[in-house]
Structure formats: structure tokens, C-alpha cells
């Protein structure tokens, strides 16, 4: 700060607070030979010691800690700069100043949010999955099956022969499918009226099929194609990915946006959930693609998955609702995509 008239000997006016007291004292600070002296209103000496400057924020005061718990504050920033040196000023303050340069910072923030959304989350999810021990995943499976049995499932009412037939298909598929990451594939039959004709996979390799599914889609090829699809969810760790993805989104929003206010925070979280649905649809398509390959390798007709979706489409009346709020792609689109892939790969079993 050249050109400023004060020499280091000039006292800086401000206020002082002593240790353990709320008393506000009109005081002045003088620094000579690295020794700071605080003077009271009558010129009496309050404390002598080393002065440490805290970084300034915005239009806040210059704050100086002096030994023995004394503190000095002043708005005479330039005088303090002269006294204690410009380099002790806050490093960030210059960048935070309201200046056209901030437009670049804003743009960088938008780019950063996009990059985190596009790539950063994937990295976090991959780290999470790599750090997850297999026994935890098996425990999640056991817990979920116990919960399903307690809440809405009943023992299967299919006769033993029928179950053995389906199990034989399952074994063929398990042979042809990629190695399960956390433990063997296991098939469970359950009577779950609330879910209708349904099959789903848990992350540890357990696959649940409802009685209604076996009754309505009795065809071997369809059962094989759907089992292949569910096994693909297991090998690609889709449910773990979704678990970690939602955890990461929650954490990142909480950490980065921090205090966004109650209304805006809800909107962010809802928006995140809505965008996650896109990933869920991506997972379904991926499982379709892998599933038909597994079914074909096991000797079943992969086109049966397309037949299955065509029939599903007919049952729901064709109205899947708009795609963007669904966890699954529209059945019609999936059937078409499956046929396209089968043709492309020459996968057909016949």
C-alpha cells in the first residue's frame, strides 16, 4: 500500500475485547519491531504481545488476535495492511469480490455439476461397489427375502413337478450366464398375489419368481429369456449401483449445495430421483441385451423375450404412460429393440 501517509508507528483506531469479558473498549493498536501494543481510551497499555491477523471476509472487520486472549477489531483495513503487511490478507477475498470474472466461476460451476453428474457419480459408485464385501451383499439378500416372506409372500402353490421343470431351465441358464459376483444363483418360487406375474433379482444372486408368472408365461423360452434378464441384473450389479447412486446424490447435494433452503432442497432431491429413473431404464435395456445372449447360449429362443414384452404390452392395454417417469422402458420399444439385436447378432435359435 504505497502512497498511504501512515508510517508503521501510527496507531490504528478500533475496538478491543479482553479475555473472558464482553466489554467493548475503544482502543488503538501500535506495532513496532514485531511487538504489538494495545492502548485503551486514556492511552493506558492494555496488552503487549504478538499480533496474528485472521483472514477477512466480505465487508467484515479486520480481526487481530493478540496474546492472552485479547482481540482487536477495526474497519481501518488499509492502515492494518500497512502495519501488519498486505500478504496477511485473505487469499480468497480477491477472487470473491463482485467482478465480471465471477461469470467464469458461474460457468465453471455449471460445467462442474454436469461433469459430476455424468462421470463423478459413476466413479463414486464404482468405489462403493469395489469396497463392498461379499458377505454384506449376501446378508442384504437374506434380509430382503426374510422381509418379503414376512410382509407379502406366501409359499409357492405350484406343484413340485412344475417347479422342477422351471428349475431345470434355471440350471441351464445358470450354466450359460456369466459368473455371479457374490454367490451362486438361486431360484425361489413364491405366491405373491400383490405383484402379479413378476420375477425379480436381488443383488447377491437370488432370483424370485411368482407363481402367477409361471402360470401366465408357461412357455420354456419365455421363462429362460426372463431368467437370463434377471441374471444380467445380478452380474452387472444393477441394484447395488442404484443404491450407491442415490446415496451419492444425496451426499453430494448435501455437501456441495449445502444450505440451499428448504424448498429448493426438496426440488433438487426430487429432480435427482427423477433423473435416476433414466439410469434404471438404461439398466433394464442392458439386462435385456445380456439376457437374450445368455438364453441363446443356453439353447433357448432369445426372441421369446420380445414375445413376452409384446404380450405384456397387450395386457396393460398399451398405455405405459410417458417414458420419462417410468423405471422401465415401454414394452413395445423393448420388444422392437430385442428383435433388432437378435437380427444383428444372428442369435436366433431356429
Amino acid at each position, binding site marked *: 500500500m504505497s502512497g498511504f501517509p501512515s508510517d508503521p508507528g501510527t496507531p490504528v483506531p478500533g475496538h478491543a475485547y479482553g479475555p473472558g469479558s464482553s466489554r467493548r473498549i475503544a482502543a488503538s493498536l501500535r506495532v513496532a519491531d514485531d511487538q504489538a501494543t494495545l492502548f485503551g481510551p486514556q492511552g493506558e497499555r492494555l496488552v503487549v504481545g504478538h499480533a496474528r491477523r485472521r483472514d477477512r471476509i466480505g465487508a467484515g472487520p479486520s480481526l487481530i488476535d493478540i496474546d492472552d486472549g485479547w482481540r482487536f477489531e477495526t474497519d481501518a483495513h488499509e492502515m492494518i495492511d500497512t502495519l501488519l503487511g498486505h500478504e496477511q490478507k485473505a487469499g480468497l477475498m480477491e477472487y470473491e469480490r463482485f467482478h465480471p470474472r465471477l461469470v467464469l466461476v458461474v460457468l465453471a460451476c455449471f460445467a462442474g455439476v454436469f461433469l459430476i453428474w455424468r462421470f463423478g457419480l459413476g466413479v463414486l459408485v464404482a468405489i462403493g461397489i469395489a469396497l463392498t464385501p461379499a458377505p454384506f451383499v449376501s446378508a442384504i439378500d437374506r434380509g430382503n427375502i426374510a422381509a418379503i416372506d414376512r410382509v407379502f409372500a406366501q409359499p409357492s402353490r405350484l406343484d413340485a413337478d412344475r417347479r422342477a421343470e422351471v428349475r431345470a431351465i434355471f440350471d441351464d441358464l445358470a450354466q450359460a450366464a456369466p459368473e455371479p459376483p457374490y454367490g451362486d444363483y438361486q431360484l425361489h418360487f413364491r405366491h405373491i398375489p400383490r405383484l402379479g406375474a413378476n420375477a425379480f433379482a436381488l443383488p447377491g444372486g437370488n432370483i424370485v419368481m411368482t407363481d402367477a408368472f409361471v402360470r401366465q408365461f408357461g412357455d420354456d423360452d419365455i421363462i429362460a429369456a426372463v431368467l437370463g434378464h434377471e441374471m444380467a441384473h445380478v452380474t452387472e450389479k444393477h441394484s447395488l449401483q442404484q443404491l450407491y447412486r442415490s446415496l451419492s446424490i444425496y451426499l453430494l447435494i448435501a455437501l456441495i449445495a*449445502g444450505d440451499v433452503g428448504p424448498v429448493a432442497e426438496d426440488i433438487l432431491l426430487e429432480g435427482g430421483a427423477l433423473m435416476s429413473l433414466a439410469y434404471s431404464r438404461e439398466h433394464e435395456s442392458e439386462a435385456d441385451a445380456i439376457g437374450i445372449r445368455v438364453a441363446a447360449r443356453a439353447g433357448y429362443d432369445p426372441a421369446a423375450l420380445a414375445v413376452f414384452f409384446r404380450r405384456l404390452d397387450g395386457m396393460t392395454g398399451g398405455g405405459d404412460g410417458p417414458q420419462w417417469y417410468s423405471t422401465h422402458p415401454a414394452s413395445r420399444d423393448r420388444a422392437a429393440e430385442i428383435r433388432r439385436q437378435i437380427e444383428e447378432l444372428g442369435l436366433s435359435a431356429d
Partner: protein
Amino acid sequence: MQNPTIHKVEFSGNARSYFGIWIVNILLSIVTLGIYSAWAKVRTRRYMYQHTAIDGRRFDYHATGMQIFIGRLIVVAGFIVFSIVSAIPIIGLVAIFGLLFLAPWLINRGMLFNARVTSWSGLRFGFDGSYWRAFRVYILYPFLSLFTLYLAIPFAIRAQHSYSVNSHRFGTAKFHFESSVKPFYVAFLLAIGWMALAGLLMFLVLGGGEIFAEIAMAERTGRAPDDALMLRMGIFYVLLILAVLPAGFIYQAFLRNAVYGATSLAGGHEFRSDVKPMQLVWIGVSNAVAIICSLGMLLPWAHIRMMRYLSDHTFILANGSLDDFTGQQEESVGAIGDAYADLEGFDVGLPV
């Protein structure tokens, strides 16, 4: 108290200078994948506190970014372990019970930490909590009010404020809270009343009944509801949320006035808040709209605007000099409780 001196809370922050701090904080947080956010929090707090003063004496925030960071690290690790463990049957149940009993301790630690890193007029605040009293007011009472269909919840809310205020000190001077339950019921009933009325009006005006009947019909026939119906339901929900939104601000305004009016500080100093519910609703809702329309860029402006309104309506009735408070040596504490409070979304910061 004869002839108290009335001091208004002075807030000198402005949107221009805060914007720079906020956006630089966000950029650094993004670049460091959230790690810097601990330091960002300290910077934001220090800005807000240093720009808030009573009788020319400023507040200040003394936590360090590293303290906040370590606290968050521990809580995030705990949160992840808890999420995974709670998926396992019996252990999960034990974990949930464990958290129930851990929560009062964490809440106490959070309030203790925040009190000790906050100063006004050069003197730190303090907090003398008790585990079992915290357990009663934050866990037991809300749980018991469940059996009254939440009709007794204002008693629990009053107990929470009473516990929090009575446990705080400024230096060695204790805060005191004394209030009937009436203002808590007024705030509660007005908010519920607004919600019921606004909800009912929306339901009638937009034909909510018809929409739900059609959806129920669609479900019974096994056909998925068509797009137009889903769209109408979406619009209905958005408008419903907008109509119900003011209830939160109405509740906040009445509660704030009640709590400040019932609080005093040893030495005969009293507090007042005269926030107008409808003005708070206006500021809160227009802030939310501005934030959304500006893709978040007006957030600092909204924050400052709310701070300014609240401080303009907060007063201290000082009984004599504010120079005579004294303090004692306080040990520093870890920031685990503060990090937990951050994650749970409740704020134990400066009550302006």
C-alpha cells in the same frame, strides 16, 4: 425492568459481496468432490456472523474447516455403515434402536459445539446439556404424542425449545425460557388450518375427486391410466404443494415470535421478535420462485433478503450495560454433533 435500552439486530451483509463468497465456495466444493464444503461452511458462517451485530458488537464464528471436515468424515462413514447394516434383519433393528439412543447425545454435542464456536462482543457462548433431558424432549415426547394423533405435539415442541434455551449460556450468564403452551398451539393450529383449507380449496377447484376416481377406475379395470390423466394429476400435485407451502412459514413466524418473547438472559435482558407471518410467507415463496427461475443463481440474494428481514424484526431489551458479561475457559469439542445436524437438516446456528 425499568427503562430498558432497545437494540435492533443490525445485519450488514449484502447480496453482491455474499454472491462471490457463495459461488467460489461452490466451485471449490465441486472441484474437490465435496471435501472443501467443510471450509465453505465456515466461510459462509463467518460472513453471516461478522455482518450481524447488536449495539455495534459483532457476532463471530470460530470453528475451523478441519474440525467440520473431521466431524463430517466420521458421520458420513457412520451413515454408510448404518445404511448397509440396516438392510440385515436383526442387526438392522438393533442399529435403528442404537441410533435412537445415540441421537440425543449427537444433538447435545452439536449444540455444545456451536455454542462454543460462536461469540458476540468478544465473548463465547456455552451449553450445559443433559443426555436424559435431551432424550425426553427429542425422542420420548414426540414418540408419546403419536398416541394423541399428534394433538399434543405443541407440548413436545415447547419442551424442546425450553430445553435448548435453558441449556445455553452467554459467558456465565444463563438464558431462561418460560412460556405457556398457548402460543405453540396457536402456531400449530393456524398452520394445520391453512393446510386443510388450502388443500380442500385446491381439491374442489381443480376437481381432485374426479381425478382420483378415474385413477381408481383405471386400476380396477387393470388398464394403465392414460397420459392426459397422469398429466392432470401431476399439475394437481404441483398446485397442491404450492398452496400448502405457506403453512410452514406461518408456523415458523408464530413460533419464532413466541420463543423470542419467552426468552431472557441473566441480568434482566429480554428478547423480542415481531415477524409478520404473511410477510414471511411472501418472502419465502417469492425467494423459492426466484431461486428456481434463476437456476439457483439468486440463492445468495434470497438468503440475504431473509436474513435482513429477520434481523430487522429482532430486538434485545437490554437492562443496563452490555459490557458486564464475563466468561470462563471452555474446552474445545469435536464437530461430530454439528455434522450430524447438517446431515439431518436441522440448523443449530445463529438464531436470527
